[in-house]
Protein backbone atom coordinates (compact mmCIF):
# COMPACT_ATOMS: atom_id res chain seq x y z
CA UNK A 1 0.00 0.00 0.00
CA UNK A 2 1.38 3.41 -0.90
CA UNK A 3 1.38 6.16 1.69
CA UNK A 4 -1.05 8.14 -0.47
CA UNK A 5 -3.52 5.22 -0.59
CA UNK A 6 -3.08 4.65 3.13
CA UNK A 7 -3.68 8.33 3.88
CA UNK A 8 -6.86 8.44 1.79
CA UNK A 9 -8.26 5.31 3.48
CA UNK A 10 -7.30 6.55 6.95
CA UNK A 11 -8.99 9.92 6.41
CA UNK A 12 -12.15 8.25 5.10
CA UNK A 13 -12.24 5.97 8.12
CA UNK A 14 -11.65 8.86 10.54
CA UNK A 15 -14.43 10.84 8.83
CA UNK A 16 -16.83 7.90 9.07
CA UNK A 17 -16.12 7.75 12.82
CA UNK A 18 -16.77 11.45 13.28
CA UNK A 19 -13.10 12.20 13.97
CA UNK A 20 -12.59 15.19 11.68
CA UNK A 21 -9.96 16.59 14.05
CA UNK A 22 -7.86 13.49 13.46
CA UNK A 23 -7.28 14.33 9.79
CA UNK A 24 -4.48 16.89 10.36
CA UNK A 25 -2.74 14.39 12.64
CA UNK A 26 -3.01 11.72 9.94
CA UNK A 27 -1.30 14.13 7.55
CA UNK A 28 1.50 14.48 10.13
CA UNK A 29 1.68 10.71 10.40
CA UNK A 30 1.90 10.40 6.61
CA UNK A 31 4.84 12.84 6.63
CA UNK A 32 6.52 10.77 9.33
CA UNK A 33 6.02 7.58 7.33
CA UNK A 34 7.55 9.24 4.25
CA UNK A 35 10.54 10.43 6.27
CA UNK A 36 11.03 7.03 7.90
CA UNK A 37 10.90 5.18 4.59
CA UNK A 38 13.11 7.73 2.80
CA UNK A 39 15.81 7.33 5.46
CA UNK A 40 16.26 3.68 4.45
CA UNK A 41 17.17 2.59 7.96
CA UNK A 42 17.54 -1.05 7.01
CA UNK A 43 20.30 -0.08 4.55
CA UNK A 44 21.88 2.35 7.01
CA UNK A 45 22.11 -0.48 9.51
CA UNK A 46 24.12 -2.56 7.07
CA UNK A 47 26.56 0.23 6.10
CA UNK A 48 29.79 0.89 8.03
CA UNK A 49 29.49 3.47 10.79
CA UNK A 50 30.23 7.09 9.85
CA UNK A 51 31.08 8.92 12.98
CA UNK A 52 34.07 10.24 14.78
CA UNK A 53 35.20 12.66 17.41
CA UNK A 54 37.39 15.72 17.40
CA UNK A 55 39.15 17.12 20.43
CA UNK A 56 37.68 20.49 21.35
CA UNK A 57 40.01 23.51 21.46
CA UNK A 58 41.35 24.63 24.82
CA UNK A 59 39.04 26.83 26.92
CA UNK A 60 39.41 30.59 26.56
CA UNK A 61 42.12 32.12 28.71
CA UNK A 62 39.70 34.51 30.36
CA UNK A 63 37.96 31.61 32.04
CA UNK A 64 34.32 30.86 32.68
CA UNK A 65 31.57 33.34 31.98
CA UNK A 66 30.14 35.17 34.95
Amino acid at each position, binding site marked *: MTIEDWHKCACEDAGSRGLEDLKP*LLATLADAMRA*LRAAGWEDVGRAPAD*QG*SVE*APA*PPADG*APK
Partner: protein
Amino acid sequence: MTAPLHFHTIAELAPLIAAGHLSSEELTRACLAEIDAHDSALHAFITVLGASAIAQARALDAETAAGRCRGPLHGIPISLKDLIDQQGVPTTAASRVREGHVAERDAPVTARLREAGAVLIGKTNLHEFAFGTTSDDTAFGAVRNPHDPSRSPGGSSGGSAVGIVTGMSVASIGTDTGGSIRIPSAACGTVGLKPTWGEVPCEGVVPLSPSLDHVGPLARSVADAWLIYLVLRGEPTAARWPLPIRQSVKGLRLGVPRRYFHDVLDDDVRERFAASLAWLRQAGVRTVEVVIPHADGVAPVYLLATLPEAAAYHAAALAASPERYTKNVRLRLEMGRYVLAEDYVRAQAARAVLRNEVDAALDGCDALVLPTLPIPAPPIGAATVDVGGTPQPVRSMMLRLTQLFNLTGHPAISLPIGDTPAGLPCGLQLVGRANGTERLLAAAAACEPCVIA
Protein backbone atom coordinates in the same frame (compact mmCIF):
# COMPACT_ATOMS: atom_id res chain seq x y z
CA MET B 1 18.99 32.58 55.39
CA THR B 2 18.79 28.80 55.69
CA ALA B 3 15.91 27.12 53.86
CA PRO B 4 13.35 25.25 56.00
CA LEU B 5 14.31 21.62 56.53
CA HIS B 6 11.71 20.22 54.15
CA PHE B 7 13.56 22.00 51.30
CA HIS B 8 16.82 20.19 52.11
CA THR B 9 18.30 17.16 50.36
CA ILE B 10 18.02 13.59 51.59
CA ALA B 11 21.78 13.64 52.15
CA GLU B 12 21.26 16.50 54.61
CA LEU B 13 18.10 15.14 56.24
CA ALA B 14 19.06 11.47 56.67
CA PRO B 15 21.67 11.98 59.41
CA LEU B 16 19.32 14.30 61.32
CA ILE B 17 16.57 11.68 61.29
CA ALA B 18 18.94 8.83 62.13
CA ALA B 19 20.32 10.78 65.11
CA GLY B 20 16.84 11.67 66.37
CA HIS B 21 17.41 15.42 65.81
CA LEU B 22 14.50 15.58 63.33
CA SER B 23 11.40 13.43 63.36
CA SER B 24 9.87 12.04 60.21
CA GLU B 25 6.50 13.24 61.48
CA GLU B 26 7.76 16.84 61.70
CA LEU B 27 9.20 16.64 58.20
CA THR B 28 6.08 15.02 56.78
CA ARG B 29 3.80 17.59 58.40
CA ALA B 30 5.92 20.41 56.91
CA CYS B 31 5.49 18.94 53.42
CA LEU B 32 1.75 18.46 53.97
CA ALA B 33 1.49 22.10 55.07
CA GLU B 34 3.06 23.22 51.78
CA ILE B 35 0.58 21.09 49.85
CA ASP B 36 -2.26 22.57 51.87
CA ALA B 37 -1.04 26.12 51.29
CA HIS B 38 -0.11 26.02 47.60
CA ASP B 39 -1.51 23.04 45.76
CA SER B 40 -4.92 24.50 45.01
CA ALA B 41 -3.07 26.90 42.66
CA LEU B 42 -0.38 24.56 41.30
CA HIS B 43 -2.28 21.23 40.94
CA ALA B 44 0.83 19.16 41.63
CA PHE B 45 -1.03 16.43 43.54
CA ILE B 46 -4.01 14.28 42.62
CA THR B 47 -4.19 12.33 45.89
CA VAL B 48 -2.70 13.58 49.17
CA LEU B 49 -2.22 10.79 51.70
CA GLY B 50 -2.11 12.98 54.80
CA ALA B 51 -3.38 10.57 57.45
CA SER B 52 -1.57 7.47 56.20
CA ALA B 53 1.66 9.43 55.64
CA ILE B 54 1.60 10.73 59.22
CA ALA B 55 0.85 7.25 60.54
CA GLN B 56 3.74 5.86 58.51
CA ALA B 57 6.05 8.64 59.74
CA ARG B 58 5.12 7.96 63.38
CA ALA B 59 5.82 4.26 62.96
CA LEU B 60 9.21 5.06 61.44
CA ASP B 61 9.97 7.49 64.29
CA ALA B 62 9.16 4.70 66.74
CA GLU B 63 11.64 2.48 64.93
CA THR B 64 14.28 5.21 65.18
CA ALA B 65 13.60 5.57 68.89
CA ALA B 66 14.04 1.81 69.24
CA GLY B 67 17.42 2.02 67.55
CA ARG B 68 16.40 0.79 64.11
CA CYS B 69 17.18 2.88 61.02
CA ARG B 70 16.35 1.29 57.68
CA GLY B 71 18.84 3.45 55.76
CA PRO B 72 19.08 6.94 54.31
CA LEU B 73 15.46 6.97 53.03
CA HIS B 74 14.14 6.26 56.53
CA GLY B 75 11.40 8.80 57.24
CA ILE B 76 11.79 10.83 54.01
CA PRO B 77 8.50 12.00 52.35
CA ILE B 78 8.42 10.91 48.72
CA SER B 79 5.63 11.25 46.15
CA LEU B 80 4.69 8.88 43.34
CA LYS B 81 3.59 9.92 39.87
CA ASP B 82 0.00 8.79 39.65
CA LEU B 83 0.77 6.05 37.14
CA ILE B 84 2.43 3.96 39.83
CA ASP B 85 0.39 1.56 41.96
CA GLN B 86 0.24 1.98 45.71
CA GLN B 87 -1.90 -0.59 47.49
CA GLY B 88 -5.35 0.71 48.46
CA VAL B 89 -4.91 4.02 46.61
CA PRO B 90 -6.38 5.01 43.21
CA THR B 91 -4.02 5.07 40.24
CA THR B 92 -5.77 7.66 38.09
CA ALA B 93 -3.15 8.25 35.36
CA ALA B 94 -4.72 11.75 35.45
CA SER B 95 -7.64 10.38 33.46
CA ARG B 96 -11.38 9.95 33.90
CA VAL B 97 -10.91 6.64 32.08
CA ARG B 98 -9.51 5.22 35.34
CA GLU B 99 -12.33 6.42 37.61
CA GLY B 100 -13.02 3.88 40.34
CA HIS B 101 -9.66 2.12 40.03
CA VAL B 102 -7.90 1.27 43.30
CA ALA B 103 -4.56 -0.57 43.27
CA GLU B 104 -4.75 -4.04 44.78
CA ARG B 105 -1.04 -4.15 45.59
CA ASP B 106 2.09 -2.05 45.55
CA ALA B 107 4.11 -1.88 42.35
CA PRO B 108 7.56 -3.41 43.00
CA VAL B 109 9.10 0.08 43.05
CA THR B 110 6.54 1.22 45.64
CA ALA B 111 7.20 -1.82 47.79
CA ARG B 112 10.96 -1.18 47.62
CA LEU B 113 10.53 2.46 48.68
CA ARG B 114 8.25 1.41 51.53
CA GLU B 115 10.75 -1.20 52.70
CA ALA B 116 13.53 1.38 52.56
CA GLY B 117 11.54 3.60 54.92
CA ALA B 118 10.16 6.25 52.54
CA VAL B 119 6.98 8.00 53.67
CA LEU B 120 4.52 7.84 50.76
CA ILE B 121 2.99 11.29 50.90
CA GLY B 122 0.80 11.28 47.80
CA LYS B 123 0.25 10.74 44.09
CA THR B 124 1.27 13.50 41.69
CA ASN B 125 -0.48 14.99 38.67
CA LEU B 126 0.76 14.32 35.15
CA HIS B 127 -0.09 14.63 31.49
CA GLU B 128 -2.96 12.17 31.02
CA PHE B 129 -1.55 8.64 30.72
CA ALA B 130 1.91 10.26 30.39
CA PHE B 131 1.05 10.92 26.75
CA GLY B 132 2.30 14.49 26.52
CA THR B 133 5.07 16.81 27.61
CA THR B 134 3.25 19.76 29.20
CA SER B 135 1.04 18.33 32.01
CA ASP B 136 -1.92 20.45 30.90
CA ASP B 137 -4.09 17.68 29.40
CA THR B 138 -5.20 16.13 32.68
CA ALA B 139 -8.53 15.47 34.38
CA PHE B 140 -7.24 17.19 37.53
CA GLY B 141 -6.36 20.68 36.31
CA ALA B 142 -3.29 21.83 34.40
CA VAL B 143 -0.14 21.62 36.51
CA ARG B 144 1.48 25.05 36.87
CA ASN B 145 5.15 25.95 36.99
CA PRO B 146 5.98 27.55 40.35
CA HIS B 147 8.59 29.79 38.68
CA ASP B 148 5.81 31.33 36.55
CA PRO B 149 2.31 29.90 37.04
CA SER B 150 1.26 30.96 33.53
CA ARG B 151 3.75 28.40 32.20
CA SER B 152 3.91 24.62 32.00
CA PRO B 153 6.17 22.69 34.38
CA GLY B 154 6.95 20.31 31.52
CA GLY B 155 5.77 16.76 31.55
CA SER B 156 4.62 14.25 31.74
CA SER B 157 5.89 14.01 35.35
CA GLY B 158 5.02 17.68 35.93
CA GLY B 159 3.46 17.34 39.37
CA SER B 160 6.49 15.41 40.63
CA ALA B 161 8.91 18.22 39.75
CA VAL B 162 6.61 20.95 41.07
CA GLY B 163 6.23 19.11 44.38
CA ILE B 164 9.99 18.99 44.89
CA VAL B 165 10.76 22.65 44.18
CA THR B 166 7.87 23.83 46.40
CA GLY B 167 8.72 21.67 49.41
CA MET B 168 5.66 19.41 49.05
CA SER B 169 7.88 16.34 48.93
CA VAL B 170 11.62 15.78 49.22
CA ALA B 171 11.79 13.64 46.08
CA SER B 172 9.46 11.88 43.66
CA ILE B 173 9.24 8.87 41.37
CA GLY B 174 8.41 9.56 37.74
CA THR B 175 8.32 7.77 34.43
CA ASP B 176 10.08 8.66 31.17
CA THR B 177 9.06 7.45 27.69
CA GLY B 178 10.37 10.37 25.62
CA GLY B 179 11.79 12.64 28.33
CA SER B 180 9.02 12.73 30.94
CA ILE B 181 11.42 12.76 33.92
CA ARG B 182 14.12 14.96 32.37
CA ILE B 183 11.79 17.51 30.72
CA PRO B 184 9.99 18.63 33.91
CA SER B 185 13.28 18.46 35.79
CA ALA B 186 14.78 20.96 33.36
CA ALA B 187 11.67 23.16 33.28
CA CYS B 188 11.38 23.32 37.08
CA GLY B 189 15.02 23.11 38.21
CA THR B 190 15.34 19.61 39.70
CA VAL B 191 17.60 16.64 39.02
CA GLY B 192 15.92 13.88 37.00
CA LEU B 193 17.33 10.45 36.15
CA LYS B 194 16.21 8.03 33.46
CA PRO B 195 18.15 4.81 34.15
CA THR B 196 19.16 2.33 31.49
CA TRP B 197 16.06 0.71 30.00
CA GLY B 198 15.04 -2.44 31.89
CA GLU B 199 16.99 -1.78 35.11
CA VAL B 200 14.00 -0.66 37.18
CA PRO B 201 10.84 -2.79 36.97
CA CYS B 202 7.78 -1.27 35.30
CA GLU B 203 5.30 -3.79 36.72
CA GLY B 204 2.42 -2.05 38.46
CA VAL B 205 3.04 1.11 36.43
CA VAL B 206 0.49 2.12 33.77
CA PRO B 207 2.42 1.75 30.51
CA LEU B 208 2.69 4.23 27.66
CA SER B 209 5.01 2.45 25.21
CA PRO B 210 6.56 -0.49 27.03
CA SER B 211 9.68 -0.75 24.89
CA LEU B 212 10.56 2.88 25.76
CA ASP B 213 9.13 3.23 29.29
CA HIS B 214 11.49 3.87 32.22
CA VAL B 215 10.85 4.51 35.94
CA GLY B 216 13.25 6.81 37.78
CA PRO B 217 13.71 9.50 40.42
CA LEU B 218 13.31 13.28 40.47
CA ALA B 219 15.27 14.83 43.32
CA ARG B 220 17.15 17.86 44.65
CA SER B 221 20.65 16.52 44.03
CA VAL B 222 22.49 13.84 42.09
CA ALA B 223 23.31 12.01 45.33
CA ASP B 224 19.60 11.88 46.21
CA ALA B 225 18.72 10.60 42.73
CA TRP B 226 21.51 8.02 42.97
CA LEU B 227 20.25 6.78 46.34
CA ILE B 228 16.65 6.45 45.13
CA TYR B 229 17.81 4.74 41.94
CA LEU B 230 19.56 2.09 44.04
CA VAL B 231 16.39 1.57 46.09
CA LEU B 232 14.23 1.31 42.94
CA ARG B 233 16.68 -1.23 41.54
CA GLY B 234 16.27 -3.31 44.68
CA GLU B 235 19.69 -2.77 46.27
CA PRO B 236 20.15 -2.39 50.01
CA THR B 237 21.48 1.13 50.54
CA ALA B 238 22.50 1.38 54.19
CA ALA B 239 25.91 -0.20 53.56
CA ARG B 240 26.59 1.99 50.53
CA TRP B 241 25.75 5.31 52.20
CA PRO B 242 27.25 7.87 51.91
CA LEU B 243 27.78 7.38 48.21
CA PRO B 244 31.29 7.64 46.75
CA ILE B 245 30.93 11.14 45.27
CA ARG B 246 34.18 12.15 43.58
CA GLN B 247 35.33 15.64 44.43
CA SER B 248 36.85 16.64 41.11
CA VAL B 249 35.92 16.56 37.45
CA LYS B 250 39.58 16.41 36.42
CA GLY B 251 40.05 13.64 33.91
CA LEU B 252 36.39 13.42 32.95
CA ARG B 253 35.92 13.32 29.19
CA LEU B 254 32.57 14.50 27.82
CA GLY B 255 31.38 14.17 24.23
CA VAL B 256 29.56 17.21 22.85
CA PRO B 257 27.13 16.38 20.03
CA ARG B 258 26.35 19.69 18.33
CA ARG B 259 24.93 18.81 14.92
CA TYR B 260 21.12 18.54 15.29
CA PHE B 261 21.28 19.06 19.10
CA HIS B 262 22.34 22.72 18.82
CA ASP B 263 20.53 23.51 15.57
CA VAL B 264 17.33 24.81 17.21
CA LEU B 265 18.02 26.35 20.62
CA ASP B 266 16.51 29.31 22.43
CA ASP B 267 19.17 32.01 22.84
CA ASP B 268 18.92 32.05 26.65
CA VAL B 269 19.20 28.25 26.84
CA ARG B 270 22.18 28.33 24.47
CA GLU B 271 23.88 30.91 26.68
CA ARG B 272 23.29 29.00 29.92
CA PHE B 273 24.51 25.74 28.36
CA ALA B 274 27.63 27.40 26.95
CA ALA B 275 28.38 28.94 30.35
CA SER B 276 28.02 25.55 32.05
CA LEU B 277 30.28 23.86 29.54
CA ALA B 278 32.87 26.60 30.01
CA TRP B 279 32.73 26.15 33.78
CA LEU B 280 33.18 22.39 33.40
CA ARG B 281 36.15 22.87 31.11
CA GLN B 282 37.72 25.37 33.45
CA ALA B 283 37.33 22.86 36.27
CA GLY B 284 39.23 20.26 34.28
CA VAL B 285 36.72 18.42 32.09
CA ARG B 286 38.00 17.51 28.64
CA THR B 287 35.45 17.84 25.87
CA VAL B 288 35.40 16.30 22.42
CA GLU B 289 33.04 17.08 19.57
CA VAL B 290 31.08 13.96 18.60
CA VAL B 291 28.54 13.22 15.90
CA ILE B 292 25.44 11.04 15.99
CA PRO B 293 25.01 10.83 12.23
CA HIS B 294 21.28 10.08 12.03
CA ALA B 295 20.06 12.07 15.03
CA ASP B 296 18.09 14.35 12.74
CA GLY B 297 15.91 11.41 11.72
CA VAL B 298 14.80 10.61 15.26
CA ALA B 299 11.37 12.31 15.37
CA PRO B 300 9.54 10.04 12.87
CA VAL B 301 11.22 7.00 14.40
CA TYR B 302 9.97 7.97 17.83
CA LEU B 303 6.45 8.63 16.56
CA LEU B 304 6.16 5.33 14.71
CA ALA B 305 7.69 3.33 17.55
CA THR B 306 5.55 4.78 20.33
CA LEU B 307 2.12 5.28 18.79
CA PRO B 308 1.24 1.63 18.05
CA GLU B 309 2.38 0.46 21.49
CA ALA B 310 0.27 3.14 23.19
CA ALA B 311 -2.74 2.44 20.97
CA ALA B 312 -2.56 -1.29 21.66
CA TYR B 313 -2.73 -0.74 25.42
CA HIS B 314 -5.65 1.69 25.09
CA ALA B 315 -7.63 -0.14 22.37
CA ALA B 316 -10.33 -1.47 24.70
CA ALA B 317 -10.87 1.82 26.54
CA LEU B 318 -10.85 3.79 23.28
CA ALA B 319 -13.62 1.53 22.01
CA ALA B 320 -15.64 1.55 25.22
CA SER B 321 -15.39 5.14 26.48
CA PRO B 322 -13.47 7.44 24.14
CA GLU B 323 -15.23 10.51 25.54
CA ARG B 324 -13.50 10.00 28.90
CA TYR B 325 -10.07 10.91 27.48
CA THR B 326 -8.98 14.52 27.12
CA LYS B 327 -9.36 15.50 23.49
CA ASN B 328 -5.69 15.80 22.54
CA VAL B 329 -4.66 12.53 24.17
CA ARG B 330 -7.55 10.67 22.57
CA LEU B 331 -6.59 11.98 19.13
CA ARG B 332 -2.94 10.96 19.55
CA LEU B 333 -4.00 7.49 20.65
CA GLU B 334 -6.32 7.23 17.67
CA MET B 335 -3.36 8.09 15.41
CA GLY B 336 -1.61 5.00 16.68
CA ARG B 337 -4.39 2.75 15.43
CA TYR B 338 -3.53 3.70 11.85
CA VAL B 339 0.20 2.95 11.89
CA LEU B 340 1.14 0.17 9.48
CA ALA B 341 3.02 -2.82 10.89
CA GLU B 342 5.77 -2.44 8.29
CA ASP B 343 6.52 1.08 9.55
CA TYR B 344 6.64 -0.09 13.16
CA VAL B 345 9.20 -2.69 12.04
CA ARG B 346 11.18 -0.01 10.17
CA ALA B 347 11.21 2.06 13.35
CA GLN B 348 12.72 -0.90 15.23
CA ALA B 349 15.47 -1.17 12.61
CA ALA B 350 16.12 2.54 13.05
CA ARG B 351 16.42 2.11 16.80
CA ALA B 352 19.16 -0.46 16.33
CA VAL B 353 21.08 1.96 14.09
CA LEU B 354 20.66 4.83 16.54
CA ARG B 355 21.73 2.64 19.46
CA ASN B 356 24.98 1.80 17.66
CA GLU B 357 25.56 5.45 16.81
CA VAL B 358 25.10 6.59 20.42
CA ASP B 359 27.43 3.77 21.56
CA ALA B 360 30.01 4.97 19.03
CA ALA B 361 29.69 8.59 20.17
CA LEU B 362 30.28 7.45 23.75
CA ASP B 363 33.41 5.52 22.81
CA GLY B 364 36.25 7.05 24.84
CA CYS B 365 33.88 9.37 26.72
CA ASP B 366 32.47 9.19 30.22
CA ALA B 367 29.23 10.76 29.00
CA LEU B 368 27.66 12.93 26.34
CA VAL B 369 26.66 16.45 27.36
CA LEU B 370 23.86 18.44 25.76
CA PRO B 371 20.95 20.67 26.80
CA THR B 372 17.90 18.86 28.16
CA LEU B 373 15.27 21.20 26.74
CA PRO B 374 15.90 23.54 23.80
CA ILE B 375 13.44 26.09 25.21
CA PRO B 376 12.45 27.37 28.65
CA ALA B 377 9.06 26.30 30.04
CA PRO B 378 6.41 27.23 27.47
CA PRO B 379 3.14 29.07 28.27
CA ILE B 380 0.34 26.70 29.26
CA GLY B 381 -1.74 25.78 26.24
CA ALA B 382 0.70 27.16 23.65
CA ALA B 383 0.84 25.15 20.41
CA THR B 384 3.99 26.87 19.16
CA VAL B 385 6.88 28.85 20.60
CA ASP B 386 9.18 31.31 18.92
CA VAL B 387 12.77 30.07 18.62
CA GLY B 388 15.15 32.41 16.81
CA GLY B 389 12.27 34.15 15.06
CA THR B 390 10.66 30.93 13.82
CA PRO B 391 7.53 29.40 15.31
CA GLN B 392 8.19 25.82 16.42
CA PRO B 393 5.66 23.21 17.62
CA VAL B 394 5.86 22.92 21.43
CA ARG B 395 5.59 19.12 21.46
CA SER B 396 8.45 18.70 18.98
CA MET B 397 10.60 21.14 20.93
CA MET B 398 9.96 19.45 24.26
CA LEU B 399 10.94 16.00 22.96
CA ARG B 400 13.72 17.09 20.62
CA LEU B 401 16.75 16.45 22.83
CA THR B 402 15.53 13.62 25.04
CA GLN B 403 13.54 11.13 22.92
CA LEU B 404 16.63 9.65 21.22
CA PHE B 405 17.79 8.09 24.49
CA ASN B 406 14.42 6.43 25.08
CA LEU B 407 14.71 4.84 21.65
CA THR B 408 18.24 3.62 22.45
CA GLY B 409 17.77 2.89 26.17
CA HIS B 410 20.92 4.74 27.30
CA PRO B 411 20.81 6.24 30.81
CA ALA B 412 20.43 10.03 30.96
CA ILE B 413 20.21 12.62 33.72
CA SER B 414 19.19 16.27 33.76
CA LEU B 415 20.92 18.74 36.08
CA PRO B 416 19.73 22.29 36.81
CA ILE B 417 22.12 24.94 35.45
CA GLY B 418 20.47 28.16 36.54
CA ASP B 419 17.78 30.36 35.09
CA THR B 420 17.14 32.52 32.05
CA PRO B 421 16.97 36.29 32.65
CA ALA B 422 13.19 35.79 32.96
CA GLY B 423 13.75 33.41 35.89
CA LEU B 424 12.96 30.14 34.08
CA PRO B 425 15.21 27.15 34.84
CA CYS B 426 17.41 25.44 32.24
CA GLY B 427 18.77 21.89 32.27
CA LEU B 428 21.96 20.16 31.19
CA GLN B 429 21.69 16.52 30.12
CA LEU B 430 24.39 13.91 30.57
CA VAL B 431 24.01 10.59 28.74
CA GLY B 432 25.92 7.49 29.80
CA ARG B 433 26.77 4.11 28.38
CA ALA B 434 24.12 1.40 28.32
CA ASN B 435 24.13 -0.42 31.66
CA GLY B 436 26.46 2.27 32.98
CA THR B 437 23.92 4.20 35.06
CA GLU B 438 26.12 4.34 38.17
CA ARG B 439 29.10 5.52 36.14
CA LEU B 440 26.85 8.24 34.71
CA LEU B 441 25.69 9.19 38.20
CA ALA B 442 29.29 9.40 39.38
CA ALA B 443 30.12 11.74 36.48
CA ALA B 444 27.00 13.82 37.12
CA ALA B 445 27.77 14.11 40.84
CA ALA B 446 31.25 15.39 40.02
CA CYS B 447 29.88 17.91 37.50
CA GLU B 448 27.02 19.10 39.73
CA PRO B 449 28.96 21.69 41.80
CA CYS B 450 30.50 23.15 38.63
CA VAL B 451 27.23 23.87 36.84
CA ILE B 452 25.14 25.28 39.68
CA ALA B 453 24.76 28.94 38.74
